[in-house]
């Protein structure tokens, strides 16, 4: 399995590059919990996100991220509790396939 990080990396200090709208609401701080969106056409099951966000994600037998919350519809509705927002951001920035995105609350 290619490079799975062993532990959480330090938070990036500057704005992420490459995918401008990782901040929920396009730079506007979100009011409620954000959601994690997965581009399933891009994800190649490297599993970094599950390592960085073990509270919310695990991996299925093929290595693809799987929401832990029972009944979560993993395409759109992985709700990010406020206390995990920073970790979620790091997971988004760490995904080598740019397959993750934080969406504003509905």
């Amino acid at each position, binding site marked *: 399995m290619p490079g799975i990080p062993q532990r959480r990396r330090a938070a990036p200090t500057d704005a992420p590059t490459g995918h*401008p*709208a990782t901040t*929920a*609401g*396009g*730079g*506007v701080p979100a009011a409620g919990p954000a959601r994690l*969106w*997965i*581009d*399933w*056409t*891009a*994800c*190649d*099951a490297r599993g970094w996100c599950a390592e960085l966000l073990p509270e919310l994600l695990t991996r*299925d037998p*093929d290595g*693809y991220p*799987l929401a832990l919350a029972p009944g*979560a*519809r*993993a*395409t*759109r*509705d992985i709700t990010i509790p406020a206390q995990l927002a920073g970790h979620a951001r790091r997971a988004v920035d760490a995904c080598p396939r740019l397959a993750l*995105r934080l*969406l*504003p609350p509905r």
Partner: protein
Amino acid sequence: MTVEHAVSPPIASATAPVPPSRLATAAAPRGPASSVGAGPAGRERPSRERPDHEPWPAGVHRIRTGEHPPAGPGITGPGHAVKTVGDGGDGGGAQRLLAAAAADLGSHYRRCGPVPWRGPGGHLLAEIRDSGLTGRGGAAFPTWRKLSAVAAAAHPDTGRLGGRRRAAPGGTRRPGTPVVVANAAEGEPESAKDATLLVAAAHLVLDGLQLAAEAVGAGEAYVHVKPGAAAQSVRRAVAERRAAGWDRCQIEVREAPATFLAGEASAVVAALEGAPARPRAHWRPLADDGLHGRPTLVHNVETLAHLAMIARWGAAWFRSVGTADEPGTLLVTVTGTVAAPGVVEVPYGTPLGDLLGLRGGAVEPVGALRLGGYAGTWLPVEVGPQVAMSRAGLAPWGAEPGPGIVSVLPAGACGLAETARIVAYLAAQNAGQCGPCVSGLPQLARSVAGMARVAGPDTAPDGENPAQAASRALRLAALVSGRGACHHPDGAARLVHSALRTFAADIRAHAQGHCLGSAHPS
């Protein structure tokens, strides 16, 4: 909103007491059971003689006999679930779209009049909102919300009707001129309603496309249509309209590939951009970011036809049939073991027995029904013919009308084998893009095939026993749900879940080495 209309609605109007039977045209298929009770000859038996294990015998099972007003408009109080109009021997059908059939633009004009342009602003949106029209492509999403979202994306200050504006994430994009698309890809192999509608009433659909284009301020309109008679009909209609100067927004006809996924909305947009017709991962709705990044409205052709009717005859007319929560009619493709498979138009809330009766009823005892096509839901025969074709009526059974397909499985057939066949098809049709779907659907298909095998002689030496295969299928169905760029895996999972519920006794029988067919009490 009251508008004076020069042209009378085809049915259900006090001003036009024309029985639907006279308006129904050759193009509108009518079941042989129009003469009630005649059914397939000799199959109707009195209910007392029905054996217990055969709760839905062959033949026509009318539910609303005697409940209909004899002819003309039938308006009942709000307490009534179903208002059926003009039971002119059509057994509860209500011809609206199909009664607007017109061979050419001239006869369309004589029947329906000119396009009722509404001008810019939210006039039509308000009428559509009041009508309660929902999308007929499968998800039953309120049509006015989609129109409103596209209008708002294009004109952030004025477009949205009765909704709050949200700042589009991503900042300062210029939205561009909206695009409207009529979706007639009809990728579902069992469905025939879109093609039937286009062959019968292409001009009605195209009027709806024009009116939707006007409502959202679109600059281009497309018809994404599967090859065959439907495409020919649309091309002919568009040529006539061009010659007559009928349209305000240019319509372009594009042929859809004949795949299951070609009609998924983001695949439609991809195809119109010249890319393969495969779904796209899109975190912003197509209403904000569709064809070449422009606000894009994709509607099923039946939705657009209803829209064109509502624009002419108003929301109150539209609501005069159907139920209070699910007004209007819907087209339903009836397929499987019925006397005359084909398309019917019925009000929401029509009992399934009446619906099948319109196509001559079942020709064999019914084993199970499937609602919503390949990506639909199995219903055990115990639901009985009285269950209503509506979201409310089907919800207790975990089903919904979906894209309007009722498939009838004979009691002698094995529901597990049928499910295995369908899941194998769905697995083969995945667009090869999303890991959990690409890997999960074929595994799911193998497990369902394992359920469909009878333990014993035809079990492979290393094969799973049908009961083990069933629990693996349950796990895999949960694993693929919601984990793709489109809802294709969800549909396959839904079908498998419903098969596990409906055919539990068959799985036990298969595990014990015999097959019940689907006729059994469970």
